[in-house]
């Protein structure tokens, strides 16, 4: 089963776990399994319309899924899925 690493501030919504093993053959299925097991994570990761929030990037091992097959990116046992924020800013 692929493993999803949980960022520290989200562990409070995942029974304090720092990683969760989930069933799923794609990133989309793995994230769905994660938010089914831990429903409080859902609003942190997805909008009400079910899209990933703008500040959420997802990596499989070292690759950004935007440059792979997005939520259809295949995952298997031994793969690590990371949730990485998108951050920028400016003075104005």
């Amino acid at each position, binding site marked *: 089963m692929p493993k999803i690493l949980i*960022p*520290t501030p989200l562990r409070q919504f995942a029974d304090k776990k720092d990683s969760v093993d989930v069933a799923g053959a794609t990133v989309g299925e793995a994230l769905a399994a994660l938010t089914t097991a831990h429903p409080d994570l859902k609003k*942190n990761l997805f909008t009400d319309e079910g899209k990933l929030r703008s500040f959420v990037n997802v*990596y499989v091992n070292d690759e950004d899924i935007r440059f792979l097959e997005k939520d259809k990116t295949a995952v298997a046992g031994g793969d690590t899925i990371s949730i990485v924020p*998108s951050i*920028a*800013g400016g*003075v*104005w």
Partner: protein
Amino acid sequence: MITVETQPWSVMVDHAQATYPNECCGAMLGAIDGDVKTVRLALPLDNAYEGAQRERYELRPEDLLFAEREARKNGMDLIGIFHSHPDCDAYFSKTDLENSCPWYSFIVLSIQQGKFHHANSWLPNMEQTEAAKEELTHPNA
């Protein structure tokens, strides 16, 4: 509330002063105990913004992935992001808000004429519409 220890604080201030008049950015690692956060390690990261870095910064997600891995390796947590405002106050701007993430504390360092002036910490909301000021303790306060 968030407290920055002496060593990471000097890393943050040095990085902000060294990159002046451009904006700097980086990650803060440490521990969270309820609402009390302690920064034990600061990682200066690249400002990846392609354009006027005097008024913008951008963190590469790969660099944040690296910061997250460093945190896990050291038994710490990624708890916040810092960046500087050259010759501007340490407010949380519209651009900061629109490109923020509600999971982290955002420390803004005001650098005036190349020297540290003051700092604030901000907690943006999920909708990226407002940021609350967080109580900040640091060695220069």
